Structure formats: C-alpha cells, structure tokens
C-alpha cells in the first residue's frame, strides 16, 4: 500500500487538547477526509469525541472541505473549532 505525508494543524481548544499545533502524519494514499477522520480519532484519543461534532469544521489547503475531499501528498489539513472572531 502506498503512503503519503500530510500536515495536520490544530487550533484553539483542539490545540490545547492535543498539546501541539502541528504534526506530520503518514497515511494511505487516495483516502477521503472522512476516512482521515477515523485515523485521527485513533491517533488523538484526546479529541476523538470532538472530531465528529458538527461544529468542528475541516479545511484542506486552507479551503473548507467535506468528508468526500480526497487527501493528497503534501496537503495541509486543519481542524477548526467553532470560530469566535469579531
């Protein structure tokens, strides 16, 4: 099975729970964001309960992404807790 490397970024409350803002992850190629979420739940038990919450959004390369988005080599995936700017 071929693998790819991606960057995963955590912000705000998620960063606090994970204990760092950014990690590099090696994952199988051609998987969707939905599948990546399952991998993240296994790798980061401290935020597993939050990953499926509707108010946690995901971005890929700084654009909002859905569960169908396919993750590619070098992608930057970010977990975005509810925004509170303004």
């Amino acid at each position, binding site marked *: 099975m071929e693998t790819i490397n991606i960057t995963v*970024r955590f912000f705000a*409350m998620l960063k606090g729970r994970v204990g760092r803002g950014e990690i590099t992850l090696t994952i199988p190629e051609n998987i969707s964001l939905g599948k990546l979420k399952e991998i993240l739940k296994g790798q980061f038990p401290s935020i597993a309960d939050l990953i499926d919450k509707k108010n946690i959004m995901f971005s890929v390369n700084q654009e*909002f992404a859905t569960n169908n988005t396919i993750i590619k080599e070098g992608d930057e995936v*970010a977990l975005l*807790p*509810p925004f509170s*700017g303004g």
Partner: protein
Amino acid sequence: MSLVRIQKDDFSVTDEIGRVKASSKSIGGIVAFLGTGRDISKGAEIVRLDFEYYPGMAEKKLNEIRERALQNFNIIEMGIFHRVGKIGIGENIVLIIAAAQHRNDAFTACEWAISELKRITPIWKKEITKKGEVWVEEHP
C-alpha cells in the same frame, strides 16, 4: 497599506476611515463597526482576551468577504481590520468600514460583513477571567 489586515498592533479608526474615504469622491456615507473588548461574559469578570488565528486562511477569508461585499452590495469601498494576540479590556478588536454613495447600502454591507466574518473566518477568542480561561464557542 492593504484595506484587509490581521495584526497584533492596534489600528487607528480615524486613519483607516480616512483611507477608505480617500478612495473615491463619490462616497456620501460611511458606516463603521468597531468591536471592542468588554469586561464581562456570562457573569464572569474578564481580565484579558487572547485571539488566535489561522495565518493565511484567515486573511484569505477576510479578502473574500470584502470582494463579495463589493460585488453584492452597492458600496464603493470596504476595509476590514482584525487584531490578534493579547487584547485588553476596552481595546479595539475588529473594525469594518463600508463606504457607499448612500447610507442604507453602507449600513447593510457593514452588518453583513461582520456577520460573515464571525461565520467563516478562522479566528478564535479565549476569555481570561478571574475564574479561569475559556475558548468562546458561540456568537451572541
């Protein structure tokens, strides 16, 4: 200087309004929304606010908001400025300036822009209170 900025330092409301106003002589009305740090939240006394953001994506979203406002409302110019980092009580947080020929368009665009900013911009506020720290999750 750009009319869309995220910065640690304070901005000058007067200077930014002046820059927006200078963009066209057709401007007849300017509406500005200024968000500031308040000292109370859900009964807890706030000591300070900490704003975190997603560098790159946050600027991109603010630029998108300005572009969409210019497209969808009858306005002439818009400026959007947001501070990040540690912000004290009473200090400036966010400034949105909408300039139009007539006031109604400026009011409408300004209100839309601040709502859209809160909805789609990856910026997070942490309230540091005397009882502890909490990431804010909802928009009143």
